[in-house]
């Protein structure tokens, strides 16, 4: 009883997603999908169906499969490095995608646009509505757990599970929206872009849900105990720089095309 009162309140659940295998599994599955897509590119060369299976193709496939196998022990041991790399990759993609609306506005006012600006804004509003719906559903579910008790394990676990689901769904939606707003003709040119992008989206979502434990710090200020990995703030800072880098690169590319 006395121990229970004197024990500090654990706040590590705020940043620790549950179940803890979800992040690494999504990350690994996404990377596998990306790898298989790359292997399929080398298998059929430039997408020409008539390409014969040459010795060179088998050599490339063999080196690719070998590289994939060698990456497995690396992934097992340094999952945090994969998660950190993919988190930064996600920030870069966000930075690149952030310039899309800006380009539409410039094209609209300069009269060089092919699509309508109102159509773009309507699409953005529809997507915003979906995000608000997800937030509301998560909020109501959390309220249900608080008022009527736990459904899965305990109140703390259930609330963390809702938080995990919310972050995962928003990450999937956010990245998915970015790639679905791309002109369909791009995917018609090369349909194998689709599984590759799906893999990338899954991997980045997995990285979002990964619990970093490296450089773990436990800050105890009674009655609160905060477990935090020093990599979290470092990645937050690095992510902002990478985001700006993606934004700058994208602006340069788009200005060249305008």
């Amino acid at each position: 009883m006395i121990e229970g009162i004197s024990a500090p309140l654990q706040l590590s659940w705020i940043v620790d997603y549950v179940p803890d295998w979800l992040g690494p599994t999504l990350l690994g599955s996404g990377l596998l999908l990306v790898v298989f897509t790359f292997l399929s590119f080398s298998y059929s060369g430039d997408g020409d169906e008539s390409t014969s299976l040459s010795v060179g193709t088998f050599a490339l496939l063999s080196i690719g499969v070998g590289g994939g196998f060698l990456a497995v022990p690396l992934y097992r041991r340094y999952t945090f490095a994969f998660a950190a790399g993919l988190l930064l990759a996600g920030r870069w993609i966000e930075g690149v995608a952030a310039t899309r609306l800006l380009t539409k506005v410039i094209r609209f006012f300069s009269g060089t646009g092919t699509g309508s600006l109102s159509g773009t804004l309507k699409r953005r509003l529809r997507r915003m509505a979906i995000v608000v719906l997800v937030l509301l559903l998560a909020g109501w579910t959390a309220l249900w757990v608080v008022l009527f008790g736990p459904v899965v394990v305990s109140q703390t676990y259930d609330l963390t599970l809702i938080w995990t689901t919310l972050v995962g769904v928003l990450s999937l939606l956010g990245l998915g929206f970015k790639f679905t707003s791309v002109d369909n003709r791009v995917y018609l040119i090369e349909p194998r872009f689709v599984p590759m992008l799906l893999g990338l989206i899954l991997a980045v979502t997995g990285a979002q849900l990964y619990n970093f434990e490296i450089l773990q710090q436990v800050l105890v200020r009674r009655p609160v105990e905060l477990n935090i990995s020093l990599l979290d703030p470092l990645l937050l800072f690095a992510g902002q720089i990478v985001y700006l880098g993606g934004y700058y690169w994208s602006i340069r590319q788009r200005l060249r095309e305008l």
Partner: protein
Amino acid sequence: MLPSSEWFRVAGTAFACLGIVLSGFAMADDADDPGFVGFMAISAGLLFVGGWIFVPDVLTRAAHVFAIGGYIFYVGGIVASVAFASKILVIG
């Protein structure tokens, strides 16, 4: 249950070695020199048979050297897919 990390290292190294040998064959084929193809076949055979007989743990040792392939795969896999995705976002 997934096999052990050591299994993946050895299998990955075996595939990478095979790929290197096969690319040698492909180069010989491009050079259009049958003698070179034969030379590659005998060399590859001697390398593997000799390795297995005289240095049984050669593949395990080589696995540590080839582990760098995993790092290349990590950097290439992420960077290449992000480069593709960025291009698609810009041109689409």
